[in-house]
C-alpha cells in the first residue's frame, strides 16, 4: 500500500445510511405537514455549529427570553436551544 495515498470513504453502506436517515435530519410534526388553517409553528434548533460571537450573543438573547417565558419550567434542556414562536416577531438574525 502506497504511503499517503489518502483513503476514500465507503459510500455504499445501507446500514450507515439508515443510521442517519431514520434518526437524524429535520423533523416536522405531522400536524404541520397536513394542515394549514389555525396552525402556529414552533421551531426548535439545537445549534451544533456556533459560528461567531455575534451569533452566540443572539442565542444568549433568545435564551434569556425563554427563561422569562418559562419562569417555573425545567431549563436544563434548553441551554443550547433556541425556541421561536412566530419567527417574524423575533429579532432578525445576522444571516437574514
Amino acid at each position, binding site marked *: 500500500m502506497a*504511503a*499517503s*495515498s*489518502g*483513503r*476514500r*470513504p*465507503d*459510500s455504499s*453502506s*445501507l446500514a*450507515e*445510511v*439508515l*443510521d*442517519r*436517515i*431514520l*434518526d*437524524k*435530519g*429535520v*423533523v*416536522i*410534526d*405531522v*400536524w*404541520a*405537514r*397536513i*394542515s*394549514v388553517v*389555525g*396552525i*402556529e*409553528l*414552533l*421551531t*426548535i*434548533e*439545537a*445549534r*451544533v*455549529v456556533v*459560528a461567531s460571537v455575534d451569533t452566540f450573543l443572539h442565542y444568549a438573547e433568545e435564551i434569556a427570553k425563554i427563561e422569562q417565558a418559562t419562569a417555573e419550567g425545567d431549563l436544563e434542556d434548553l441551554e443550547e436551544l433556541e425556541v*421561536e*414562536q*412566530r*419567527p417574524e416577531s*423575533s429579532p432578525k*438574525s445576522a*444571516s*437574514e
Partner: protein
Amino acid sequence: MTNRYVYGIMNDDPVEFETDAVGGADRVYTVSHRRLNAVVSDIDTTDPEETDEDAQRHDDVLREIMDRDGGRAIVPMQFGMAFENDRALKNVLRGARPAFRRALNDIEGRVELGLKVVREEDAEVDDDAIEEAVAETLEPIAAQSVPNDLFSDRLVLNRSYLVDRDERERFDDAVAELEAEYDEDLMFRYTGPFAPYSFVDVKIGSQQ
C-alpha cells in the same frame, strides 16, 4: 398522487430530474417559497412506509443534489416527511424560514463523514489514548463533529464529522495516517460522504 414527499431544503436554483423516487414516483422537482426550495416528489400518502429501498432512494436523491454544480448545500429531512399538499409545505417554508436559512449557512460547502474505530478481537488497547489521538488528528481539520452511540464494547470511537469540501483530501489523508499507525490493533470504518444529517438538528412542531 397529490401529496409531496420532501427530501431536503436548498436555496440554489430549482432542479428537476427523472429518477426512481420514494413511493414509486419517477420525477424529482422543487416547490419554492421566496428562494427556499423544497426538493420533492409526488406520493399518495402522508405517512410513507419505511423500506430499505425507499431509504436508499431518499439518500440517493440528496446525493444527486449534493453532486450538482460542484457541490450544492441541502438541509436533509429525516425519512418520512410527506406533506398533504403544496400549501402546507409552503406554510412550513415560510414559518421556519430563519431556521432553514441558518441550517443552510452552517452546512454550505461541507459534507458529513463517518468514522467507526473497532478493536480487533484479541487486541488490548487504551481507549482513551486512541480517542485523544484521533481527536488531535481529525478535529483541527473538521468544521465540527458529534459523537454517536458506542453500541459495542469493541467500538472504541464512533463519530460524525462535518468537513469542508476543500479539506476532504486532507481529512482522507489524516484517516489513512491513523489507520497505518494502528494497523495491528484497530479497524477503521470510514464512510460517506453523506448529506449533513447529523448537523441539522431542527424540529418543527405545531400548536393547535
